[in-house]
């Protein structure tokens, strides 16, 4: 069984927003709903300053806080590690939004379901890449199977120095970031 994961080399990101809108097109979302976002930071003072951009999205935690708090089990984790939402069970309490330490959820105002990145579940099982990965000119993201020793992501994880977001929260994210 595959365990899907992602490696984000945030240092390569130049903030063009292609990942956001490619995802919106993939899932036919309205303009104001986005499943990924960019965090902008300025470090230092003029003229010695760095502009750091970090893409953030659902981390597909192995220990997902949103899943633990969901009263009806609408949020669930597949055996391949992808955390998804069963719309028909969701009561719209937004507990998952409050609980997620990554702020990864966004409320779909029409369906009233707190939505998030789906790791393109239906597509990756067919061997396709999520469009946020494939459209990126800077190749910021790498998506793949963490169980497959030959996958590109595993090779990169083995060689590079990586970190996870908020590891102290014990969420065990499946998204890794390359250290700047």
């Amino acid at each position, binding site marked *: 069984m595959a365990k899907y994961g992602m490696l984000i080399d945030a240092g*390569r*990101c*130049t*903030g*063009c*927003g*292609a990942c*956001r*809108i*490619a995802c*919106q*097109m*993939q899932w*036919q979302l309205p*303009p*104001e709903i*986005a499943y990924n*976002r*960019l965090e*902008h930071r*300025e470090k*230092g*003072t*003029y*003229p010695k*300053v*760095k*502009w*750091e*951009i970090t893409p953030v999205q659902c981390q597909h935690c192995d220990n997902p806080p949103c899943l633990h708090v969901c009263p009806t089990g609408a949020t669930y984790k597949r055996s391949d590690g992808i955390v998804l939402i069963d719309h028909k069970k969701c009561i719209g309490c937004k507990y998952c939004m409050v609980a997620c330490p990554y702020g990864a959820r966004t409320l779909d105002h029409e369906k009233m379901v707190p939505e998030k990145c789906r790791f393109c579940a239906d597509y990756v099982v067919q061997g396709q890449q999520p*469009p946020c990965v*494939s*459209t*990126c*000119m*800077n*190749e910021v993201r790498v998506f793949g199977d963490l169980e497959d020793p030959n996958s590109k992501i595993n090779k990169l994880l083995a060689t590079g120095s990586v970190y996870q977001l908020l590891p102290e929260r014990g969420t065990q994210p499946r998204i890794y970031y390359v250290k700047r």
Partner: protein
Amino acid sequence: MPKFSRRTFLKMAAATGAIGSMPVYLNRNKFLEAAEEASIEKVPTLCNGCSNMCGMFVHVKNGRVWKAEGHPIHLKSRGRLCARGHGTVADIYNPHRVTQPMKRVGEDRFEPITWEQAYQEIGQKLMKIVDEHGGNSVVWMEHGTRGKQYADILLDYIGSPNYITHYATCFTSKTNVWPKMVGTTLYGDHENADYMLFVGRNFAGGIIPNGMNKVLKAKERGAKLVVVDPRHCELAIQADEWIPIRPGTDLAFFLALAHVLITEKLYDVQFVRQYVSGFDEFWQANKNCTPEWAEKITSVPADKIREIAREMAAKAPRAFLETGYHGLNAHYQNSVQQAQANVVINALLGNMFKVGGLLPAASLELGQLDKPVPPAKEKGPRVDGAGEEGPYATVEPGRGIPQLVPKLVDEGKVKAVFIYHYNPLRTGPDPEYQKKMKDAELVVSIPIDWNETSYHTAHYILPESFFLERMETPVNVNGHITHLSPQIAYRAKVVEPVHDTRSLLEIMQGLAKEIGASKYFDFTVEEEAEAMVAPLGITMEELRQAGCLEFPATVKTGFPMSALGKPSLATPSGKVEFSVGVYKANGFSGVPRWIAPKVMPEKDNEFRLIHGKQPWHSHHITSNNPYLMAISETYNGTWAWMNSQRAKQLGIKNGDKVTIASDLAQKQVQVKVTELLHPDCIWIPSAYGGFSPKAEVAYGVGVNYNDFLPMQVEPIAGSVMGQEVIVTVRKGVN
């Protein structure tokens, strides 16, 4: 002529597959299988999010456009698209498109009319104007190049020389200088360079996806990237170093670089001796341009200038000064000299026609459909004076001076204006001045959406079909990035028009019928396309299936030499000419010399107003796109940037509303207080300030630099000098 066969195509597809992963749809059978399963049609075409025309596959589900992805072979996209590409595709269903021909019936009122009525009325008015005032009272304005093939027929038929593009607001200095100094245009070979110096060029803002990819590939290899820009632009994120420079002084920086290269004997002496003319004249004119001199002007430390020059020289010829784009080339009084200095630096590095340095574009000669041409008519001088005897003799007539058109209308010299795929009211200086265009006897706009020019000036609006709804003729894929092999691609029709809109050729045919020019437009775009690709040994069917085809390499490295062993550039000497004879003949300096910017900020509350492309907008043309504007909304994209020290002095905090004022306008905007900007300037993205009430997404959002910018013409290349404007800033909105 390189011959193309199915076999070479397959070989090339295999080669591409070896480099990257070969997508399933390159193999047509596999692709058809996949498409069948998903009942999704993937149509290759060319993007219209900016003017780079990236290759893309558009996915169509049940007759509806679903999404796009980059074409894996196409040089510009290489399987990747930027935000504009994705957003533009979604725009086909934008509710603010012009859905059928419109006729103005009042200040802000239009009434829908039939195409036939539109053709009739426009045709009659046009012929009356031509009869009474002559052909050169008619101008055709457009963004550039794509309508030219049809506009030219019309202009030839009525006897008008006035084809005008938007380039005066873009890279007109560069295109003026390079043919005169180098005889061609060269582009950086980013992928193979060891040192890249980008000055005023934001590769991550004005995006060619594969261009950015090449830069990062070079960086992975260990290449050095240095970005000199008043603003820490997005590209600077990837740079080894960002060096802020006082805006408008890039020329001084270049002259000092040249000074170090020459005084320290770091330049490629052999290259200069063999392939450069006018070196001494350049040196005599710029002997005093030391790094210390430049430091005072540019605020870049002299030692830093020396360091850059030395490092570049050490890496030459795999080192170049990026040849630039919009940034710097239409912005200042010294833009032309700046473009000249760019050529000088690169020539001193001896990097021209070398791998890792600068290379020419790969292209193929396309065929032409044999069709009747209108009988030759005596055309008067160009009404904007571009290339004519007079003040604008050195301006390229092929580009024109669009910012003069409202004035020419006002003076009664222009009576009819056709505006195709162009929005000078928003993208040209001083919108109130631009509005004078509406006083012409006939103003016809051919847009997609309700842009400002259509809404405020057009008498007739003839909506063109969206780029996904029309076919265009094949083009060479090249420019701004390098590739040894030429590529041919074309814009295919992906879906039927959603509204009652037509392609430009259809519009021209309709109009031609009314003015008796039918027989010059008696062809289809398919016939044209077939004739164009015929010499390449391919058919349109092959191109239709592949979307983009690559041919054996045509670019050769090494300086072009004649059979006699002499340098053979298309310049008078065959060499790179540091001194431009035509400039000299018209009373300008032949070699670049220091010219100060026209205006400078002086007081505590004065700033130079500079602008730039936001990575998700193509200046203003994408500003009515709900998806792209949602990105602006999320990231406070409309805010004006201000250096934190200056903000502190003025008591301005992040997010505060301020009033920006020039002699022309006074506007309110929120401020991003930042460390990422030179203290001398305010930076605003070029995307905002929509003022067409029918383009509701853009309307009233943000401000535009053109609001503050007076109409001006740079004398050599005719640019608008888009950053020669000083504004005052104060906290508050009253």
